[in-house]
Each structure stands twice: as C-alpha cells, then as structure tokens.
C-alpha cells in the first residue's frame, strides 16, 4: 500500500508532506504516558479525543491520516473533515508523545489543514467565521471596536506611562476586552516593580487566533503591524501576560518553521519577548522583590498549553508561587508537559462553546481534587474558560491570575 502525494493543489500541506508521511500510525500520541525512574504517568491528555472518541479525533494520528488521505486523494473534503480539524484545541499533548520525524510538524500540520479547509466549501464553525469577518476592522476576535482597546487602562495610569521605554506591555485581546483585571493588575505590578515599560496606543491582535485557525492571509498584516511597534516606542522587548500572545510573539514572529511562521511573515529581529512570570522570577532571583504581604491559600497551577508545551515554560510560575509567603502549591495529576488543556484554544471556545466549557469543567474537577481553594494560571484566556466552568459547576474554587496574586503584596526592594 502506498500513500503517494497526488493532490499538490493543497499547497500548505503538500509542502510538508515529507514530514506528514513520517507518521507511522503507531498511536503513541493518543494517550499520555511516561514510565521509569524520572516519571510515572498515565492519563488521557487529548481533549478532543476525550470528547469525540473516534480515532480521527484522538491525538495527531487521526489528523495525520486525514492529511495523508487528502493528499493521496483517498479522502475528499467534507463538513465532517472540517469538524475533526476545528475541534482540536492545538494543545500539543499529542506532539509531546510522538517520537518520529512528524513530531515537530504536528501543530503546523493542524494549522496547514485548517488553512486548506478555508479554501474549500466546508463548514467552518460559525463562531470562527463571525470574528474572522470583522477582525480586519476590529483588530480583535471579540467583535469589539478597536478604538475601545485601551478602555481597560485608567487615564491616570495612561498619562503616567512614558513615550519610550525598554518594554512594551502587550496586553492582548483577551485582557484588553474581557479579563481587564489581569491587564490592570499587570501594569500596576510592573509600575510597583519599577519596570521600564509602556503600553502601545495601537496594539493589534497578536494574530494567534488567526494562525491557530489557519487564516494565514489575514494574519499577515497583524504580524507586520505589531512587529513595527518596538521601533515606534524605542523598545527592545515585549512583555505579555497572555500565554497565547507569548507563544505567538516569541515563536511565530521569530522562529523558523515548524515552530514559527517567519517563512510567511519574515522575522521579528532583536526583540526580546518575555512573559510577566519570567520577568518576576528573574527579579525574585536577583533579590529585587520584597513581599509586603502574604497569600494564605492552597493553590494549584494550571499550565496554559501555549506557555507550557508550546514554549516549555514550566518552572517560572511554580518558582514564583513557591516564593509567595503563605501560598501552598499543590499539583494536579496532569501537569507540566502532561497538562490537560482548559479547552479554549485553537479557536474552540469561539467555535464550539459547549464542548469548550465541558472540557474546562473536567479541568476544574481535577483542580478541586487537589484540595486547593485557588486555581491560578498565567493566561487570561484560560482564566476566562476556567472561570466559566467554575461558575457553571458551582465549584468552590476561585480563579486568580498569578499577577493578581502578586500585585497587592509586592514592592521593589
């Protein structure tokens, strides 16, 4: 049996066929597992497979089979293909498990498949189509007006920010329009810590939702726009509180494929991208932060996929939490590279609200089982989805971003 490349019109996929074809169909990606001296772990990690069951949905094997089927003309496009493609959150757990040469290309393959889907007459989720049709004007996927983007920033703080600074705080769409408390806590925290930063008057969506859902053509102007911001503000770096923005700015804007998209949009040169949590960890390590209060709670940390598996930032948030007086960090069974997605990513929250919430409720239940009273994270998008699940399930848990924990209880030494 041969799976020859026959359909070269699917350009985004055909270009990476040499990697896609390396999938052996072994199924290692369908279940999280590691055994041995260093780790003992076994649990389902694929949120999509957990919900939709069939092998098409479970891990990367199903999607690789769809890609091979389309490329070898053994499968035709259909609404069912689109459903499989768009219900994956891009959490990266399957990629973590895979060991063959398709591994680094798995997430890129998912996005390439979606980008081809847009060109076909198939059912792209309505929720995604809706924001996609307005993002070119609104510059955000929340159907909100661009001119309201900075509404979260009180004028008193706005006027105190410098015109030029070392860093631009890149709030991102979710914190700007939805979890405004996270954006506000971040600027207050950065000010308290005397970080040299400013906020851009003209930030656009980082393009994460566009890239993750395969809308390459639309993404281009967003990447180009944001890439130009550091020059405008004399800045040498971006600070983000959003895991999605962090992944996009630090990888998609700056790395070669398959991690990044500089093949399509060029490279953002000489700009440092840091997540707030990394900055704080560094300052704690340098002895620059003094705790003026405590946070007396048992806390569990949810690894956002875009900060964890996508960018391998696992220790910084934990080290910061451990440094907070009174905070007692307890881990969920599925943590770090074996974390379980909150269910929001990859366009799923916008495209399939119920399934997204159902997934996040699973995560909330897992958090509850640790005995923690607080669930914390480093991503306003996870914040939103987990909070919705907490409300839906009437969970006693409280969701707080780490910056919100830190802001009231720190000062610069």
């Amino acid at each position: 049996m041969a799976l020859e490349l026959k359909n070269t019109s699917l350009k985004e996929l055909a270009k990476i066929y040499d990697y896609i074809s390396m999938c052996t169909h072994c199924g290692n990606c369908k279940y999280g597992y590691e055994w041995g001296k260093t780790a003992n772990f076994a649990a389902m990690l694929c949120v999509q497979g957990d919900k939709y069951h069939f092998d098409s949905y479970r891990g990367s094997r199903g999607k690789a089979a769809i890609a091979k089927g389309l490329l070898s003309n053994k499968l035709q496009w259909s609404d069912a293909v689109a459903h499989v493609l768009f219900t994956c959150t891009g959490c990266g757990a399957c990629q973590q498990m895979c060991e063959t040469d398709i591994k680094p290309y798995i997430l890129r393959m998912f996005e390439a498949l979606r980008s081809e889907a847009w060109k076909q007459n198939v059912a792209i989720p309505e929720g995604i189509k809706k924001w996609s049709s307005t993002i070119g004007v609104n510059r955000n996927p929340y159907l909100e007006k661009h001119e309201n983007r900075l509404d979260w920033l009180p004028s008193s703080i706005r006027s105190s920010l410098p015109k030029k600074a070392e860093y631009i705080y890149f709030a991102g769409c979710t914190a700007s329009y939805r979890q405004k408390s996270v954006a506000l806590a971040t600027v207050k925290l950065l000010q308290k810590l005397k970080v040299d930063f400013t906020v851009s008057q003209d930030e656009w969506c980082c393009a994460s939702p566009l890239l993750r859902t395969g809308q390459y053509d639309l993404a281009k102007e967003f990447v180009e726009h944001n890439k130009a911001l550091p020059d405008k503000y004399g800045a040498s770096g971006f600070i983000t509180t959003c895991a999605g923005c962090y992944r996009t700015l630090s990888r998609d804007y700056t790395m070669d494929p398959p991690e990044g998209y500089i093949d399509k949009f060029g490279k953002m040169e000489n700009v440092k991208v840091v997540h707030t949590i990394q900055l704080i960890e560094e300052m704690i390590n340098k002895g620059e932060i003094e705790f003026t209060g405590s946070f007396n709670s048992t806390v569990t940390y949810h690894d956002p996929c875009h900060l964890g598996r996508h960018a391998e930032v696992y220790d910084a948030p934990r080290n910061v939490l451990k440094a907070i007086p009174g905070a007692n960090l307890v881990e969920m069974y599925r943590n770090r590279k074996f974390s379980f997605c909150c269910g929001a990513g990859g366009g799923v929250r916008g495209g399939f609200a119920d399934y997204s919430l159902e997934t996040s409720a699973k995560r909330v239940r897992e958090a509850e089982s640790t005995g923690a009273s607080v669930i914390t994270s480093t991503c306003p998008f996870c914040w939103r989805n987990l909070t919705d699940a907490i409300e839906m399930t009437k969970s006693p848990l409280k969701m707080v971003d780490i910056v919100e924990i830190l802001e009231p209880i720190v000062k610069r030494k």
Partner: protein
Amino acid sequence: MARGNKEIIAKLEQIVGPEYVSNEEANLIPYSWDLTWAEPRMPDYVVMPKTVTEIQRILRLANHQKIPVIPYVNATNIGGLCVPEEGGIIMDLKRMDQIIKIDPETCYAIIEPGVSHAQLSAALKATNPQWEGFEFSKGFEFGWGVHPASASVLAMAINHGIGHLNGRIGINSQLLSSMEVVLPTAEVVKLGSCAYSDSWHSFLPLPRMDGLFTGWMGTTGIVTKLGIWIFPIRPYRDVLTIAAASAKDITKYMVHWRHYSLCDEVTAVSWWLAQIPITFPYKEKPKDAPEFFSYTVISGWSEEELEYKRKMWKKVVQEEKARGTQLIDFEYPEEAKRGRTELPSRIVGSTKNYSKSCGGGLAWPGTFAPCKSWPILYEKWKEIYIRHGLSPATRFTDYQGAHYGMLRCMTPFDKRNPESVKAARNAMVECVRAGIPLGMLPYKPPVEYMNELNAAADAGYVYLMTKIKDMLDPNNIMNPGKLGIR
C-alpha cells in the same frame, strides 16, 4: 462524504447512541490502514460500544444484514489485522476501558478490551502483593512488550503477545486465566473458572476452550473480559550484555544460558536492529562490528540472588568462549539498558527506534521458530532482505522452558513510494515462505502470510480450522478474509 446505509446507521445509533457511530469518511479513514503494507480499505461504519449488551445487539444486526465486524482497539498489531478486507463495521472497543478487578492475593486481574498498557501498568504498579492484609512487596507487573503504551493489553494477550517476562514465565497468551466472549452469533459465554464462580484465576483443569479465541485475530468472537495472571515486581534487576560474531555464535550462547532458566528474558538483535533508527535503505555493516548484540535481564529478591545469576551467566560466557564460540565483550549504553527494564516505555514503544524517518512504513515477518533454525533462517533472510534493499534488523528472543522463540525482522519502508512498499512486502512474504519448512510460524499473520501457511499446512489442520470457524461464525461476519480460508 458518508458511506454505508442509512438504515444500518439508524439501527447502530439506536444501539449505542448517535455520538458513538459514524459513517463519515473523515472518521473512517484512520481505520482504513495501519503501519504495514496492507492495502487500505475503507470500513463503512465505526461504532464504539460500551457494554456487552451493546456488542450483542450489534452482532445480531450484523448477522441479520451479513455485515463484517472488525474488533479494533488501536490497530498496532503490525499485521494489517484490523484493515477491513470487505468493509463493514469497525467495532472500536476503546470505551470499554475498565480494569474490573485486581486481586492481589490470587494474583490476577480482569480487564476490558480498551485497557491500554499505560493504564494497566500504572494500576498494577500501585497494587501490592499481599495475603490477608500482609503486604509482601511493592507492585505487580504483566509481560510488557515494546508496543505503543496506548495499545490494548487484551488484544495483545489473546493474539500471543510477547512481553519482558517471556523468558521466565512464557508468552502472554500462556498467562490467561479466564475470559468472557461474545460469540459471532451474539451469545455471551464464560470460559475457565469464571464460568463457575466469581473467581477468574484459571482455565485449568477444564478443557481449554479459550483456544477458540486466542490467536484467531478477532475472527471467532469478541473477548469482552479477560483474566490475566499478574506477577510481583522483583525489586532487583540487572541487564547483562554481550555481542557475537555471527548468528550461530549468539544462538549457541542463548540456548546455553536459557538452559538454566535464570533470566526474565534473553534477546539478541542483529547489527541493523541495534541502529536507532534502523538504517533504511540497507547499509552495509562495518566489517569490524559484531553481527549480533544480546541482552539478558535478570531479576531477584535480593542482591545475593542477582549476584548468583550474574555468576552463572559469567560461567556460561566463559564456557562458551572456551569451546570456541565467538563472543565479544560488550556493554550496552545505560539508556539502552533502561529501555529494557522500564517497560512499557513511551520511547521504546514509539516507532522512533525502528522507523523514525523512513517514510512511515513498518512491518515484520514476526515468527516463532525453533532456536535451531534461527541461524539458518537468519542467513536466508539476510540474503532476501539485502536483495530487496532492506536492512536485516533481526531479533531472536527465547521463550520460557522451550527450545523455540521469536525470530523477527523489524522492517521500515517508505510508504510514499509504491516500489518500496512492494519490495518490503515481497521480501517479507519470501522470508515466511523460506521459514515454514524449518518450523517457523508467523504470529499475528497478515493475509499474505496466512496464505503461505495454509498452502503448507496439513490438510486436516485447515479442515478443522474451517470447521471451527463455520461453527462459530456461520455468516462469516467476524473479520472476514483474515484467515485465508474463505
């Protein structure tokens, strides 16, 4: 694009609920091929039952409509065994994933088909062998192979799967203790001690009717619960390694060492299988490199026990060297040793070691063969493989108390290229043909091997096999085409 028939879909939906049935090609395509060169064939439906009753109802429908049913969990059997030869219903059993019982006193577990190696190994490791509350030691294990950890333990065990304890306690289908089966005609039967009580400890002293469902590759019924013996984990373990100049030399050593029944496993791999990943296409072995590398795993309850086994092993090696067997002292790297003692393993179980970057294909002539024929067949297979541009990545593994063991050749190939696929298939079928007269029998055989077997078989054997199949499955709905007899 949808396949199949609307009425059938409606009936299947009634049985398991609409969420668990699909006839959409998008959902069917991952079930249409596997790692091997088996020709892709689309099923018409996939259905995911949760209960025995649902399975019975599906089989009644399938009999009534004469639709093939293919039991399926993860399709990693490396034999194209779940590729639906004649379309039909893929019965994906992953939702039946309960570990029903682990009995730490009588030392057995009862599992459903969807229980993965990952799941069971974690549960067994967390259960301690005990009697009336007194715990003897920490954790249980089963015979873990080098499969992907997501693969089914039940599907492996009922098809003569091989694990890391096979040198000590036999292959995994020898470790079954009871089973529940839904016959092709939908009756539920219990076999072994569980047919008489709630105890699932043994098939003996009853007639071994479990043989009607082991090694049949899902063609005679659906095993819905399986009792398996489980074994206390021995806390002390070591891996001893040696190399040899030829297949003959390594076989002499293995047979001698095996004689004392002191190891959990003794395996030898040819130079090509020792490469990670296996070289593809064929590359010549450096002249000064040993032809074979061997490891043996020893275990014990104390350092003294281990030390005794080490001493005995050294004695065997010295004696063999003294009588001219060309053994070469060789230490495996630590990582490779860990790979043998920390099973099931994500890394070893992934296909990385075998076919990381060759084009997605992986198959084997996987066989049981008398040790005597190993060196002869190795030389034959090597010639066949090299002629087809493939690396003879061969493995010998001795099975407990027996004078036979595994002879197999793990074979990566390039699925993008029809010529490569053809070469791999032709080479492997030729190997099987060459091996049968020397006592070699393929396990989990693809249809092509089954045809070779049937052509060489005693007529009475094929007659009986056909008769049993006809008796159990009068409408030939269970994984049809796989036995090569219809």
